[in-house]
């Protein structure tokens, strides 16, 4: 499109992009650009994204075209997951392909107007010819966003036992250093029924020729919560409803007596049945006036807290994990957790999770998902979550 470079650059130097990629190295570039745009600089300060340029009568039609172009580019940016949210808007991308067929200058201007993700790079030593090259991080980002739908569908098609075994294996081998990996194991061990956990361990044997317990014990042996994790993962709990109030009181007192000693708590968490544990947590809350998780925050040990939360109120825990995926600055594992939770719980306790989410965050889960995801990924999630 001839002329009006200021309008083109106005599309994407927006506050919105800056907020989404907080902390991202690309964002630093964007932040610098936003900052410089506030101070006096040679480049003219770009107007906010959605505002139209000031209309002057003689240039009205030109401005209209520019505005339409700006809208199109913003739409494409959002479709490419450039404005936040998970997944990509496949239909919008395909329609842009069609509309801009045989118009490479439109694509070029889109790239120029997307400075955080495309940057000018000289192609020859003389620097005479430059192209807008794609930042490596943006390529990685796009790969992740495009593959969200694929990952969801592959996981959905798998047997639940195999899913759990693969998540556990990845948490141990790929994300070992990440603090969230212990939490994934705790989630698998504590929110699955005894038969489901046993099935996952069977699938682990079949897939990796090792037992899950031996891998957890070996890979996490240096960490402080190795004993707890091995115990949780190896548990084969009694599934009946029998609860002994006396035992619950005795164990609540034993836990209170030694708040820093995790051995008692680890033993209780790894062996007792879930109804029995809930009774113990309830009695603890009655004795101390606050839930056990709060006391554990002071003592430290995030795995213990997660275990107690998963065993006591799994729906609430899952609601928080989902909300964590939508937060600004959520990292890769937090975003991947959305797929994991929805796929694994859609046929289990999704209704309870929806209720817990509304209670915690005041908004319906389907609305939050629709707002924060795009394209086929969004549609698949909504289909799994249900009305």
């Amino acid at each position, binding site marked *: 499109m001839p002329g009006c470079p200021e309008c083109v650059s106005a599309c994407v130097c927006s506050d919105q992009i800056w907020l989404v990629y907080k902390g991202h190295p690309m964002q630093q570039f964007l932040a610098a650009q936003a900052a410089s745009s506030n101070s006096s600089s040679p480049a003219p300060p770009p107007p906010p994204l959605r505002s139209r340029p000031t209309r002057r009568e003689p240039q009205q039609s030109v401005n209209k075209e520019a505005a339409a172009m700006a809208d199109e580019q913003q739409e494409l940016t959002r479709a490419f997951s450039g404005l936040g949210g998970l997944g990509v808007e496949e239909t919008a991308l395909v329609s842009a392909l069609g509309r801009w067929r045989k118009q490479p200058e439109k694509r070029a201007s889109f790239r120029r107007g997307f400075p955080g993700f495309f940057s000018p790079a000289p192609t020859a030593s003389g620097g005479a010819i430059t192209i807008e090259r794609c930042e490596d991080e943006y390529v990685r980002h796009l790969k992740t966003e495009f593959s969200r739908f694929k990952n969801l569908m592959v996981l959905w098609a798998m047997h639940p036992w195999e899913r759990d075994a693969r998540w556990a294996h990845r948490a141990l081998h790929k994300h070992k250093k990440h603090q969230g990996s212990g939490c994934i194991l705790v989630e698998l061990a504590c929110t699955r029924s005894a038969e489901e956990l046993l099935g996952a361990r069977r699938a682990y044997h079949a897939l990796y020729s090792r*037992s899950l317990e031996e891998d957890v014990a070996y890979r996490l042996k240096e960490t402080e919560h190795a004993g707890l994790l091995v115990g949780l993962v190896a548990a084969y709990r009694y599934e009946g409803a029998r609860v002994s109030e006396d035992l619950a009181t005795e164990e609540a007192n034993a836990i209170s007596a030694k708040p820093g000693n995790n051995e008692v708590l680890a033993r209780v968490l790894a062996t007792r049945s879930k109804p029995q544990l809930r009774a113990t947590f309830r009695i603890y809350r009655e004795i101390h006036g606050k839930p056990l998780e709060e006391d554990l925050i002071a003592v430290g040990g995030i795995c213990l807290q997660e275990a107690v939360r998963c065993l006591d109120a799994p729906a609430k825990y899952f609601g928080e994990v989902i909300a964590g995926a939508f937060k600004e600055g959520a990292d890769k594992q937090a975003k991947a957790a959305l797929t994991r939770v929805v796929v694994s719980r859609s046929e289990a306790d999704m209704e309870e999770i929806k209720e817990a989410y509304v209670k915690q965050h005041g908004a319906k889960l389907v609305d939050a998902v629709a707002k924060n995801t795009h394209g086929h990924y969004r549609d698949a999630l909504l289909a799994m979550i249900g009305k």
Partner: protein
Amino acid sequence: MATITVPQVIPSPTEDADALMKAFQGWGTDEQAVISILAYRDAEQRKQIRLAYQEKYDESLLQRLQSELTGDFQTAMCHWVLDPVERQAAMANAATKCIHEEYPVIVEIACANSPTELLKVKQAYHALYKCSLEEDVAASAPAGNLRSLLLALVSTYRYDGEEVDGGLARSEAELIHEAVKNGENGTTDDGELIRILGTRSKAQLGATFSCFRDEHGTTLTKVVTQSGPAAWIRSHGLHARAADHGEVRLGRQQLLCEGPEERDARVSGDRRGQPDPGGGDARGEGPQGHQGRVPEDDLRCLGASHRQGDIR
């Protein structure tokens, strides 16, 4: 392999139940008749006899045997009449009641069974006692190495295959050697030992013990027997409980290495008087269901006889 012999022509369960009732009647019991029936039936046939007896005479065969027989013979026959998995669950439950003396029973059940059989025992335990074996073991064992080891042995669901990692076997043989040496010197570092024994597959452990033997010229059994318990008593100044720890290690390791024949020989050597029919039975029989399972009352009687020291 199983050694039980079943006659060519097997009477129906009802006929067997009638013959048993005839043996119980009158003064005393015709023990030979009881043996000639029950000792020559496999687990499925014995279950049918139990059901037929219950239906016809409206009393539990187990309770009748309890009242008619005495001593070790009574214990043996009562155990024999149970399903193999229920038998082991009952033994494990009795052992948790006096775990200081009876922990070898739990070690034996945890180690001698295949992972699938151990799982069935745990499922039978859930059905019979409305709680899990792990929680009873964890609650009754004293805090420390014994509890960690017993819990690890009982909870684990080992990989059942033959795949072995040679490098890992060598490195873990070294770790075991260090742990035993540290035990001699007074610094206990049993976390690694418990981790290895409690999680690795049997094939992997076999490879590790072979590496230990090749590297140090002596088997782990000998090393632990010679240096383990006594050294612990000397260095820690503990009482017999320290010897227990060594024995547990020894027993554990032996049980993992030995095959079924060695196990039978050891068990029948240990149990003076009555051969243990449960051992061969557990391996010779196929998987059993839980229909016609033994009521809780009968198992409580069995537990009582355990505590009286009738079984060792």
